[in-house]
């Protein structure tokens, strides 16, 4: 292969690295109105009165909107294909506020100062309700977070809103109670995974204006331009044909920008005033008024025989979705989807539980999407089981993990197409020095070093639902334009999709212009999430390129007045296989757009996959613990990845390193915390600590390629799987170091220290 598999630099690398004005804020119209939001100081309240008269009189204030001024149609901000499985439980503004930070009024003024001044002049009187803050007490709480009658679900997701249950979920194969009785050993543990903040460097932002035909144009830092258009149409009650969403360069997303946080506010201001508007969330709003990872409680019960074969996996969950149900049921179901198939010598498996509403900032999509929470709980319990059986934790995995060509209880006979996970484990053991260093080494009187490990899987796209389209056009000058609706938020997806097209067309990648994404121009794509872009959009690009290549050969043959079987195309020239005749691509391109009876060539494809092949990863952590303080230093992290064919080794490596470090943050530092009245405490980078350069030790990355038959060039996904192993692997290493099993994230020095004192679970 000429282009695929090469470490090509990102096509937009130089302009984003050197600070060119390519992001949403840079592109906003001059003189845009500045939009600010008045937010609720209370976790749960009803607005008894709201007086905007004085604020409206302020010079420079253009509009102030309250719940009385917005459509009464409920919607969801979840970035999911229609009909969304997330409940329609939102209004743009509502009489009831459900968390500290919930929007009360929209203010637009000529500048920020005026908008803020106006905000301070709005008078609101609230009737306070008792908030539901503890997610373990939400079910059956006297307060009901969503008592309104017009909440709507497109599917039955098990909503019982009078009990604060958004969604109930159950998968069960086999008879758990019977099978567990047959087990020689049963282990059980309960885990708590915390909410995390995405903390992408570019906070949420969007700008909007009306174009020359009066259509609403939104420029937004979003992962989901087509879903934004549909949501806006529903929320604003205008036809989708009147809306255009443009996505420029994006300063990070991690799933946060799969939930629309801001677009609706500028859009409604532009519609009401006819003027361009911009909204930029500051860091505090980004932390406290968007979405976080779902915090969960997961109880895991494993049963095994005395040889170490795992027979029963039983997981009970409870998930906190906060005030609104974006991604509530889907994140929760992924906990089971990505844990139950991993170990397949089982005779019975179950995953069941509820997602509940509370009066806190809503949860939403976040890299890993439930698999992260599930991996921490399951893998920690596997390590516990290995210890109880006195087995090497890598051995118990090698015996039990699903292999290529095998099936498992939840796959209904379907076979796993590709996996090199066993090789990943072997390679990881070598890289971390398992033989020499497992489990623990005394460094000096106070310090010990220990090793731990975990494995995980994710998916590639959403099987049977998300479907992407791609178009490739042969331009008049012999170059190509690749049109896609997916979103490169820094991952390099525009580049790897161009690599795929270049490979098929046998052309240099420089000959391809990539255009993504603009809902007026791009073919439909659900957007970039669920680890779908390489795999799903990638297949669409491959097929569109093949379609175009076929047309080039046909047109070239026609030009040469022979049949298409008699010519070949090498990326530059269409030539007769036998004989002298040939035409250069540029010449053909020119010919196809000049004169009568011509047709410019466009390759097209739409692709949706019936399967979601899992990428795999084996993670190994080495930590050093100071026994006097409980302080944990991460020394080394080894990640070995099976993402099928690696399309671009450099970009893939950075994806892994970035995801591992985010996982390290989740394992050791990051914790979204609320005060006792429901106010977010961790609303700056001072309180919410993401890893800095000193926190991460050494991260080593290796690949064990497999070949996924259903993927483009054998590729699977990589974006999400990489965040899942650090928490369980580090927890394991900590246990091996000091014998403290930390079962609630993050693994802080206090928990380790107190654990050492008490030798009980923390």
């Amino acid at each position, binding site marked *: 292969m000429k282009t695929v598999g090469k470490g090509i630099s990102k096509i937009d690398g130089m302009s984003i*690295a050197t600070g060119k004005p390519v992001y949403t804020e840079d592109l906003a119209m001059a003189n845009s109105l500045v939009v600010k939001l008045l937010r609720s100081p209370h976790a749960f309240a009803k607005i008894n009165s709201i007086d905007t008269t004085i604020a409206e009189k302020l010079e420079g204030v253009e509009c102030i909107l309250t719940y009385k001024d917005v459509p009464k149609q409920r919607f969801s901000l979840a970035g999911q294909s229609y009909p969304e499985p997330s409940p329609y439980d939102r209004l743009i503004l509502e009489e009831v506020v459900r968390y500290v930070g919930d929007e009360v009024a929209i203010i637009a003024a000529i500048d920020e100062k005026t908008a803020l001044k106006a905000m301070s002049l709005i008078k609101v009187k609230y009737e306070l309700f008792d908030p539901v803050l503890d997610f373990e007490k939400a079910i059956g709480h006297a307060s009901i977070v969503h008592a309104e009658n017009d909440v709507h679900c497109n599917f039955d997701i098990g909503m019982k809103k009078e009990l604060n249950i958004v969604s109930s979920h159950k998968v069960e194969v086999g008879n758990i109670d019977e099978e567990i009785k047959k087990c020689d050993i049963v282990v059980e543990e309960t885990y708590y995974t915390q909410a995390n903040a995405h903390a992408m460097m570019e906070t949420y932002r969007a700008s909007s204006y009306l174009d020359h035909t009066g259509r609403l144009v939104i420029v937004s830092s979003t992962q989901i331009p087509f879903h934004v258009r549909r949501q806006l149409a529903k929320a604003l009650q205008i036809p989708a044909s009147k809306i255009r969403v443009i996505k420029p360069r994006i300063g*990070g997303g991690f799933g946060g920008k799969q939930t629309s946080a801001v677009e609706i506010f500028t859009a409604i201001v532009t519609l009401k005033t006819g003027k361009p508007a911009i909204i930029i969330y500051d860091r505090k709003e980004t932390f406290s008024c968007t979405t976080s990872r779902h915090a969960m409680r997961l109880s895991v019960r494993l049963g095994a025989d005395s040889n170490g074969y795992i027979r029963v996996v039983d997981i009970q969950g409870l998930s906190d979705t906060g005030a609104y149900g974006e991604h509530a049921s889907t994140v929760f179901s992924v906990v089971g989807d990505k844990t139950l198939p991993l170990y397949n010598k089982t005779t019975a498996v179950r995953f069941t539980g509820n997602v509940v509403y509370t009066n806190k900032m809503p949860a939403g999509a976040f890299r890993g999407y439930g698999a992260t929470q599930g991996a921490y709980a399951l893998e920690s319990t596997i390590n516990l089981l290995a210890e109880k059986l006195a087995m090497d934790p890598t051995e118990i995995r090698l015996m039990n993990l699903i292999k290529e060509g095998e099936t498992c209880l939840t796959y209904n006979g379907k076979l796993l197409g590709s996996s090199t996970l066993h090789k990943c484990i072997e390679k990881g053991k070598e890289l971390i020095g398992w033989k020499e260093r497992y489990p623990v080494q005394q460094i000096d009187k106070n310090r010990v070093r220990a090793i731990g490990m975990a494995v995980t899987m994710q998916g590639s796209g959403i099987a049977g639902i998300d479907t992407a389209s791609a178009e490739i056009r042969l331009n008049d000058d012999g170059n190509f334009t690749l049109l896609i609706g997916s979103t490169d938020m820094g991952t390099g997806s525009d580049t790897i999709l161009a690599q795929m097209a270049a490979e098929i067309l046998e052309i240099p990648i420089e000959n391809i212009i990539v255009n993504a994404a603009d809902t007026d121009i791009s073919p439909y794509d659900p957007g970039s999430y669920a680890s779908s872009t390489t795999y799903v959009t990638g297949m669409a690009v491959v097929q569109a390129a093949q379609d175009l290549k076929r047309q080039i050969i046909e047109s070239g043959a026609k030009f040469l007045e022979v049949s298409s079987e008699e010519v070949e195309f090498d990326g530059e020239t269409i030539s007769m296989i036998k004989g002298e005749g040939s035409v250069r691509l540029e010449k053909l391109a020119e010919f196809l757009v000049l004169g009568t009876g011509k047709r410019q060539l466009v390759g097209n494809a739409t692709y949706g996959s019936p399967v979601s092949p899992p990428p795999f990863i084996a993670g190994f952590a080495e930590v050093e613990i100071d026994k006097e303080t409980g302080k944990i230093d991460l020394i080394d992290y080894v990640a070995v990845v099976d993402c099928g064919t690696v399309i671009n080794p450099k970009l893939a490596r950075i994806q892994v390193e970035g995801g591992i*470090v985010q996982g390290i943050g989740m394992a050791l530092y990051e914790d979204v915390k609320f005060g006792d009245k429901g106010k977010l405490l961790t609303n*700056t980078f001072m309180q919410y600590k993401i890893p800095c350069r000193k926190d991460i030790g050494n991260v080593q990355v290796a690949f064990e390629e497999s070949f996924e038959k259903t993927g483009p060039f054998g590729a699977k996904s990589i974006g999400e799987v990489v965040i899942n192993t650090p928490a369980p692997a580090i927890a394991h290493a900590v246990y091996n170091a000091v014998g403290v099993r930390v079962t609630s994230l993050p693994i802080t020095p206090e928990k380790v220290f107190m654990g050492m004192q008490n030798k009980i679970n923390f």
Partner: protein
Amino acid sequence: MQIEVIVNLKKIKMEVDANEFLADTLRKYGILSVRKGCDTTCCGLCTVWIDDKPTLSCTTLSFRANGRKITTIEGVHKEADEFAQILVAEGAEQCGFCSPGFIMTVLAMKNELTNPTEETIVHYLTGNLCRCTGYMGQLRAIKTYLGVQ
């Protein structure tokens, strides 16, 4: 109030409010490479040089820059491009939003430190957060750039 500053070697008069910060002033005057990622001096995205010293422009009151020399990435584009090439070849820019502040700090470090070790590099750059790359690739790029092992 009016201040006079030298931005990227050009003298400019700027109209600023008494409580306005330099990052905002620079953006207002079209220098869009200056970014903000926090409001608490934690992220380093807003780093520019004032009199050749890397400074957080998000918390520098604009009037304090009066009469001083301000350098942003546009003012050192040759050196910035040279390093950016290495960074990009390493694949170590992802979303790129943190890059201008990061690159300004790297270039300042190059001027300030001779033969830094890996430890001193990491220490110098601790105030520059990046949520995407995981830092390892950035470190590889810096080591290539400085020719250190």
